[in-house]
């Protein structure tokens, strides 16, 4: 805890760092060390993105295998056990290792730029979140390379199927510990974002002037902070049952497996909004930019986001309509779930209002954003159908549900994230994706997605349950399954085109100047790619669409900037935090400890290194050492002095001795 509190960007001291006898002060700007020790929110955001996209591709391959297995009745591509592993890992990977970290990539990269900050409030904590996320991702996926195999308990991990009795091998342990690490990472990152948004806003950036993406970041961060504890406790209880023989979900000792479902979904439903609110934020940035109009009804969009987040905590049991909750509870959760459709609908109305009377420029990000609105609408409507509990009794755990949440998660979250990548790519890398290839990938993805998932509505209504590795030919499911698989292959091609083009553009794409879209928010006032200190002068904000205002009032802004630069120089230049390896060390310790808890066998027979307790203790010691050094190295930084061209390197070297 102390460690966390010490990583304060706003260190009071102004002296250059002394050469330390104890602490390693890495200064590498390139190479592996620079990435392992970076505290720059942009680099961390980039790394989040890279890892997320890698796991997105892994999850995609798992999805394709699932679809190939189901292409024909009684398919033989996978065995039952392999299939169960695939859908478990597909769900876990896409939710926790692809969509969430991809959102986190944007939180990290874009949000501090949007509020006119130079970094997040706790840069080293940010690095810790990243590496803990990576550690968790590895732990979850370790099973692929082990005898026990990857987890196969479903992404919801319902007890008692995940208890020691029914899942005696280590795969569930790895799933549990991996998710615990991801929880630590997500909570730590979210605390950081909350403090950053509330406390590091540029002068004049009032809460009601925050860009909507930043608002949604804030709401999402609150949802994470308040909902992740529930899954953490659920996982703790499951792990206690598995390791120490407690009885939380042990039926013979009075355990009630329904408790797992309640704890899981008190987390799980806010999690749905954790996945969709950032996407809504991204779309609320893109639509105004490409309509060349401000967002229609900004305050209502913000409040509807907040009320979605708030109501999101009161509807969890709609995932449990078939567990026999009784009429009153079912009715209450049914009505609450319907109520949540109102703020969601409000957002759609406001997006349409934004388009109305605009000058819509149909660039690739806009295409994806409009695709989002359409697909999310369909997903939202099937969601309303689920809220009607009697109808849900037939739809629950059928392919209708699969169709619904893929419309929300792919058509919703993923489309918006893909839109965001296109939208901010020029800012991040100074290059722009070709319109032709961008639009081509959009249409292939759009078509593939709908061909895959639209027939699933009919499959579900025709009685096909989810999580089934096989089906008979006489149930009327053949055609829809076949089409869905063809669609999945098309979707796969689309995603391949998208990323191939992205990699090509990263290396050789067309170079563009700043503010390529004539955008409205503050991050576009920066050169691309943004310098490590972001803003030469902390901007002063005068209006909601801050940069749009700046572009209309160039003289006033230039005057302010000159004054600001003078004041900044008088304060000793731009304060920058030091790089640090210790967050990485702390995450490494957590990683080793999780391996000890989850992977190593309980019997000490494999010798010293095989002993569960020894490995866990080593991990604990490494983590404590990391935190200890992190606390003691202090939060000093160095100062940059920029010349008129913004050239900092010479001064920086001097500042560092």
């Amino acid at each position, binding site marked *: 805890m102390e460690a966390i509190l010490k990583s304060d960007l706003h260190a009071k001291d102004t002296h250059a760092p002394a050469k330390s006898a104890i602490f390693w002060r890495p200064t590498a700007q390139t190479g592996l060390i620079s990435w392992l020790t970076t505290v720059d929110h942009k680099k961390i955001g980039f790394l989040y993105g890279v890892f997320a996209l890698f796991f997105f591709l892994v999850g995609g391959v798992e999805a394709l295998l699932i679809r190939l297995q189901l292409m024909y009745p009684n398919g*033989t591509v996978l*065995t039952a*056990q392999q299939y169960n592993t695939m859908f478990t890992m597909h769900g876990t990977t896409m939710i926790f290792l692809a969509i969430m970290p991809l959102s986190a990539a944007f939180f990290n990269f874009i949000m501090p730029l949007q509020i006119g900050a130079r970094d997040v409030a706790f840069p080293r904590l940010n690095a810790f979140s990243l590496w803990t996320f990576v550690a968790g991702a590895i732990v979850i996926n370790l099973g692929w390379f082990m005898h026990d195999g990857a987890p196969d308990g*479903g992404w919801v991990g*319902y007890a*008692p199927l995940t208890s020691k009795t*029914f899942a005696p091998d280590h795969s569930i342990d790895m799933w549990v510990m991996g998710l615990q690490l991801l929880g630590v990472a997500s909570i730590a990152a979210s605390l950081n974002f909350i403090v950053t948004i509330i406390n590091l806003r540029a002068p004049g950036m009032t809460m009601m002037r925050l860009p909507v993406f930043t608002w949604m970041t804030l709401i999402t961060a609150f949802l994470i902070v308040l909902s992740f504890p529930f899954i953490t406790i659920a996982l703790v209880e499951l792990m206690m049952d598995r390791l120490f023989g407690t009885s939380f979900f042990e039926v013979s000792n009075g355990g009630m*497996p*329904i408790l797992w479902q309640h704890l899981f979904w008190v987390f799980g439903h806010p999690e749905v909004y954790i996945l969709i609110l950032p996407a809504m934020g991204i779309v609320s940035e893109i639509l105004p930019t490409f309509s060349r*109009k*401000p967002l*229609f*009804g900004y305050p*209502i969009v913000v409040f509807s986001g907040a009320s979605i987040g708030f109501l999101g905590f009161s509807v969890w049991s709609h995932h449990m309509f078939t567990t*026999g909750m009784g*009429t009153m509870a079912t*009715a209450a959760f*049914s009505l609450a779930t319907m109520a949540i*459709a*109102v703020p969601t*609908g*409000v957002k*759609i*109305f406001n997006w*349409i209002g934004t*388009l*109305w009377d605009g*000058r819509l420029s*149909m660039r690739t990000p806009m295409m994806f954003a409009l695709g989002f609105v*359409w697909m999310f609408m*369909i997903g939202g*409507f099937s969601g*309303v*159908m689920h*809220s*009607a*509990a*009697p*109808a*849900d*009794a*037939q739809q*629950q755990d*059928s392919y209708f549900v699969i169709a619904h949440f893929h419309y929300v998660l792919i058509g919703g979250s993923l489309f918006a994230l893909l839109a965001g990548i296109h939208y901010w790519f020029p800012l991040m890398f100074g290059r722009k994706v070709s319109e032709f290839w961008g639009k081509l990938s959009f*249409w292939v993805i759009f*078509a593939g997605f709908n*061909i895959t998932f639209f*027939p699933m509505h*009919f499959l579900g*209504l*025709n009685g096909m349950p989810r999580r*089934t*590795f096989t*089906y008979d030919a*006489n*149930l*009327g499911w*053949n055609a*829809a399954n076949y089409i869905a698989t063809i669609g999945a292959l098309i979707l796969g091609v689309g995603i391949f085109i998208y990323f191939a083009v992205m990699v090509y553009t990263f290396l050789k794409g067309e170079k563009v100047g700043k503010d390529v879209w*004539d955008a409205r928010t503050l991050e576009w006032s920066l050169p691309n790619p943004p310098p490590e200190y972001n803003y030469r002068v902390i901007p002063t904000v005068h209006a909601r669409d801050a940069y749009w205002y700046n572009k209309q009032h160039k003289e006033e802004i230039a005057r302010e900037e000159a004054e600001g630069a003078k004041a900044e120089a008088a304060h000793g230049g731009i304060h920058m935090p030091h790089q640090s390896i210790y967050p990485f060390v702390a995450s490494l310790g957590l990683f080793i400890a999780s391996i000890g808890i989850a992977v190593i066998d309980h019997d000490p027979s494999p010798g010293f290194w095989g002993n569960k307790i020894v490995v866990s203790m080593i991990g604990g010691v490494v983590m404590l050492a990391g935190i200890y050094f992190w606390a003691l190295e202090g939060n000093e930084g160095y100062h940059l002095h920029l010349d008129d061209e913004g050239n900092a390197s010479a001064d920086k070297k001097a500042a560092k001795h």
Partner: protein
Amino acid sequence: MRLSSLLTSTARWGRAGFALGALALLSGCDYNFWRMDGHQSTITVAGPVARSQLEVFYVTCWVTLVIFILVGGVLAYATLKFRAKTEAEEKAIPPEQGHGNPLIELGLIGASVLALVIIAIPTLKGIWYTYDVPEDRKADTYEITATGYQWWFKFEYPSEQIAGSGALTTGNELVIPAGRPVRINIRTVDVIHSFWVPKLAGKVDMMPNRANFLWLQADEPGYFWGQCAEYCGDSHAVMRFRVIALAPKDFADWVAQQTSPARNVTPKPGETAKAQFASLRTFKQNETGITDKYDVAPLEAWKAKQFPEKGENAALIAQGKALFVSKTCASCHEVRGHGAAGISGPNLTHIGARSTIAAGLIENNSEQLQRWIRDPGSVKPGNKMAKAYIDNNIKLTNEDEVALVAYLQSLK
């Protein structure tokens, strides 16, 4: 740029093209994907509970469809109308920088609330109606207990007590009286399962330490497909069952037959076990184990199973009966009256009269039964019978298999 504008215009046609392509794919199939009249359809329902649930679904469907057409129409109109056609138009003077209109917002919120109220009323009615048997039908209700096992279903009839062995117990085929409400107690012995017969009622989960129930009713006699709907481990996908609704008289006959002990076939003096040793063919892994007759006239096919087959070889059956005990089958399965009283597997007292085996997965005929007895693990991955074979080192010769099959088929 020219290329990209070409793409945009082709793309618009492309969507239609994809739709047509999908249609073309369908032309070779027996079913079109939007047809929802399969054996597990929730749309072509056969009982009041499923019908009530379907009605609620239709309300949600129509309300959302109307909203979708309205909102989608406005969205499509706005997208087409306000599109910048040229690059110059994109860069032209920006439009009026309006920030919104509270009256429109409030109006739309009000309209959405109204639409939801339209859904909420039938929803609430449906919740209470589908929860339990209506008061005026309570007296007429027939009660059954369904218990989930990994991966099969046990059905008990508390009102049909058999002296010395408790309630009538069957497995994987639930026979109910048609036209009467049936209240089913939903239990499990291991993990969570879910009881789902789509044509009769929505699902209710079998939760450990939780006394769930549901009610359903079949309007007419019929043969219905059901399946476990909650992921329950390796063979979740093949944990299936059937519900057979019979007219009152047929049901009474069935109960009478089931409550009697297992059928005995006594060999005539001098009769020898003549097994047909045609070796079992190899089954493809992706082979459907059920013949068409259960698609065409399932109830008739099921009724035909109730009577002893012609050409039974009594000596072979006797041999099978002995094997049933000596090969330890009896330690898990009960055959009432034949000295087999195991409880961890399905009750086989009248297995020969069932239409399916292996939890509704494959048809109950000699060939499929032999396939199942030979290698249960290949039919149903991870199941306990396969494990018991390994644990007890059970080896069956072809002759053993044929004898066991003859015995089990004789248990009508």
